[in-house]
Every structure is written in structure tokens, then in C-alpha cells.
């Protein structure tokens, strides 16, 4: 079933701080949207390593979410952004938060006869920083481990933290323990390092042809730490 010719689905809209992506919003369209990129560089980082331009020209955000490959970028981004997904079906329309959308290995909340028609999220407020770091065998390949991070600092305390993981389990994961551990802390290198260590506890990687679960955990910790550091740097830059 090919929806490419259904009109009105390819939108990338910004209504104030709310970003709305239609079912046919291509990765490339989001990548080139400067408004999104300037407020949320995590997305720009991620798009740069999502396959290659020819893939991004056709691939859609919604498609990536529905496919729910745990090594893909958008499922983790959706978690980090507290995104919402709109599902439309014969029985009506419903909204699911990203945190409940991914239910198992490549399995989502989309029911029989339903279609994911929109994904929306709020742009991180000014003063926050976001970053995306992944390790892959080659540029554009699926991530062996990756982290999508959003941080906000209020005064000298971390006020908001989202750490979403890709390639480190059967679904994209939030390192909730690490996130909670960051709130209220001063944003020092020590604190970030400790959060990365905590994030490992949320990881459930499996062995594959390219790497062992052990390697993925090790590198998972590294990408979380690096993403946190980059996000923090962007926080500070935007203040």
C-alpha cells in the first residue's frame, strides 16, 4: 500500500514552538528546516548520519517511527523530544506519547487498520541544549550505539534531562535513572560522567555480526557522556 500520492501529508509545520510532521514528511525536509535545526541541533546531528541524502529524500519520519528499528534515529529522537504520535483509523483518531508508542522489537502501538498520520513535539526552550551522538561502522550506517540528549540548565542546576538510547535494546530506550540523577545537579564533568555510567543500567543490547552486547554497552556509555557534554555546551552557548 503506497500513500505517496495522498495529498496534504507531507507537511513540516511550526506553530510557535510546536513542530508538526505529517505522515509524508521526508527526513530531508526536516533536515533542511533551519528553524528546527537552530532550536534543536540534535535533529540536525541525527539527520546528517541517517543513511545518505538519497535515502533521506524518500524516507519519512513517520515511516521510521512505524518501522521502529531500535537502531534508527527517529524513534530515539521521539523519546528525547517527548513527542506525540497521532494514529488514525476506522474507529477514529487517538494520540499516543512516544514513550508508549514503541512496544516491542519493531512493534508499535499502531493497531490493525490504523495509520500514523502525524508526529509532533515541542522545540526545546531557549537556554536548553541538545545533541545526538552515535557510533556506526561507516558514515550513514545503522548505529551500533547512539544517544539523543536534551538538557536544560536553570541557574546552576540541571532542570531538564532527556537521554534516549538507540541500538542498545529491542526498542529505543530512555535512561530514566540517569535522567532523574541529573535533575538538580550542577552540570560538571563528574556529574555527566556519573550519569553516563547510570545510563548503562537502562541498556539491554544484544550481540550481532558487528559487535557484542558488551561492546555496545561500553560504547553506549561513551556516546551518552559525549552527547551530554555537547548538549551542555550548547546550553551554555545559547544562554
Amino acid at each position, binding site marked *: 500500500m*503506497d500513500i*505517496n500520492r495522498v495529498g496534504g501529508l507531507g507537511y513540516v509545520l511550526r506553530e510557535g514552538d510546536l513542530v508538526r510532521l505529517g505522515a509524508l514528511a521526508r527526513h*530531508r525536509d526536516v533536515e533542511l528546516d533551519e528553524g528546527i535545526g537552530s532550536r534543536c541541533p540534535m535533529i540536525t546531528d541525527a539527520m*546528517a548520519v541517517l*543513511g*545518505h*541524502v*538519497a*535515502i533521506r*529524500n*524518500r524516507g519519512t519520519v513517520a515511516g521510521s517511527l512505524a518501522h521502529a528499528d531500535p537502531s534508527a534515529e527517529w524513534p530515539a529522537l521521539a523519546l528525547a523530544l517527548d513527542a506525540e504520535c497521532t494514529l488514525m483509523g476506522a474507529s477514529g483518531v487517538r494520540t499516543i506519547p512516544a514513550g508508549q508508542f514503541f512496544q516491542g522489537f519493531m512493534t508499535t502501538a499502531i493497531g490493525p487498520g490504523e495509520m500514523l498520520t502525524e508526529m509532533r513535539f515541542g522545540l526545546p526552550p531557549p537556554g536548553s541544549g541538545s545533541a545526538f551522538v552515535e557510533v556506526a561502522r*561507516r*558514515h*550513514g550506517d545503522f548505529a551500533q550505539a547512539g544517544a539523543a540528549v536534551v538538557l536544560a540548565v536553570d541557574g546552576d542546576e540541571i532542570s531538564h534531562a532527556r537521554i534516549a538510547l538507540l541500538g542498545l535494546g529491542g526498542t529505543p530506550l530512555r535512561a530514566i535513572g540517569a535522567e532523574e540523577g541529573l535533575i538538580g545537579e550542577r552540570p560538571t564533568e563528574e556529574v555527566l560522567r556519573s550519569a553516563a555510567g547510570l545510563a548503562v543500567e537502562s541498556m539491554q543490547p544484544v550481540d550481532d555480526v558487528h559487535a557484542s552486547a558488551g561492546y555496545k554497552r561500553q560504547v553506549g556509555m561513551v556516546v551518552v557522556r559525549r552527547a551530554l557534554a555537547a548538549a551542555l555546551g550548547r546550553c551554555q552557548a545559547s544562554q
Partner: protein
Amino acid sequence: MSGVPVIDRSLVTIRANGVTLSAEADVRMTLADFLRDRLGLTGTHLGCEHGVCGSCTVLLDGRSVRSCLMLAVQADGADIETVEGLATPEGGLHPIQEAFARHHALQCGFCTPGFLMTVKEYLAEKPAGGEAEVRERLSGNLCRCTGYQNIVAAVSELVEEGQP
């Protein structure tokens, strides 16, 4: 005659390099096979048929796509540019082709059409260039012969010249 699967056929019409062409295609036929076998545009090559090597890259409505991953019917009504459309009708080479020749940026030539189309899209963006950016942009096209160096040199020169 048992076990005959029902296969739909469809008339697919595209503007290929500015010329409107139509042919029948099974709905499961890929765009790559359609271009090659139905329209005789064999310059687009198949290296993997799973979207990784980039040899099959063409421009669809100005955007690069993996023609091996699309169905012909999906391209109905679209503007397709293939390698055959780069040179002038009189046989004058496109600046991208000339740069590739100048820099010995091809050896066996099999991956070359895919690179040319990728580069065409890239140059149209009037990019900033620089070796890292060029290599990243080319990383979706695999070459086994050249080691990429001369391709990077050709593309870098084109960027610097503001081509085309």
C-alpha cells in the same frame, strides 16, 4: 497451469531526461529495471538492489533516489534524470563529466553514473564544499576501483568553480 500469481500491470509514464516516455510495467517492477529494460536507459546500473551501493541513483523531481528501492509505478508522472541526460544532444559532455575525465575519477565506470547524479544534486545546492563535506556527500556511493580520491578532487574542483 497451476500456481499462477495474480500480477497487475500498469502503464507508467515518466519524463525521462525531458522526454515523455511510457511503457507497461508489472506493479512489482522496480524503477531501475523499468528504466533499463522498458525504456532502454541502461546507463543506470544495479550493484546491490538493496539501496546501499548507490549505482542506481537517479534524480526524481530533482532529488536523488535509489531507483532499485522504488517501484516503477511510484514514479508515474515524475521527472526523472539519468546519466543519459547529462551530455547535450550533440554529445557535448556536461561539466561534471568533463571534470571526472580530467581527474581520472573513473576506472571501470560501473558506479560512475550513480556518482554523477549524486554530484549533480549536490552542486545544485551551491554547497560550501571542503574535503570533509565532499567525502560525506559521496559516502553513499560505493566504488571499488578508484579509492575515491580522484572523484573527490573532481567534485571539489566543480564546487570551487561554482559549477554548473
